[in-house]
């Protein structure tokens, strides 16, 4: 399925990309994260197990087990620090 990826804040800067289109082989958030980690470099580093990041699907934060749907808006970002 095709996913519309967004990256924010420190992760946007580290990845060097604010948005992109990704073709996902799997079905869940975990599958997506694994596919991005497989790119190596900063992707492997920032998305490694134990690193703190959040994933939102269609603008709602979800758990790693969450299922994805075609054309979903997926955002990956660090823990929030507003207020």
């Amino acid at each position: 399925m095709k996913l519309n990826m967004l990256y924010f804040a420190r992760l946007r800067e580290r990845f060097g990309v604010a948005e992109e289109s990704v073709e996902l082989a799997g079905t869940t958030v975990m599958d997506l994260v694994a596919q991005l980690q497989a790119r190596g470099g900063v992707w492997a580093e920032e998305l490694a197990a134990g690193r703190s990041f959040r994933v939102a699907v269609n603008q709602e934060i979800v758990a790693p087990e969450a299922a994805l749907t075609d054309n979903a808006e997926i955002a990956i970002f660090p823990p929030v620090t507003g207020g």
Partner: protein
Amino acid sequence: MKIVVQAEVFDLGAEVNAMRQGRTDIGAVASFVGLARDMNEGSGVQAMTLEHYPGMTEKALAALIDEANVRWTLLDVTVIHRVGRLLPGDSIVLVAVASSHRGEAFAACEFIMDALKTRAPFWKKEETAEGERWVDARASDDTAVARWAK
């Protein structure tokens, strides 16, 4: 209910007056203003830039307010959060809650702030003498919001 994300400064007095306008059923307005400080984590901060996730921000703030309305009987809520570059002393966020009774106004105002800190997609980047740095999330904010778990 009013939710705004804006670069411009806001006016606490004007926002609270707008909530009160023409009403005689409000007994209590609790409000909070968060400000940019000149110090954080032991080093001087010259400025900060707030980034956010447009669209999700407003949805996340509306969800927090909906939760507050379920937990407490509120008459009105205003949340304004600024984005862009801010200097020490500048306002960052305003939460104002009107209710018939003070206990509910205080609780809802603090709940919304605590929840906003951990759930609304804003990120701060600080400018210090040593260069720029992204602010790390604080464990104390997780502790603060955990107090509200039912």
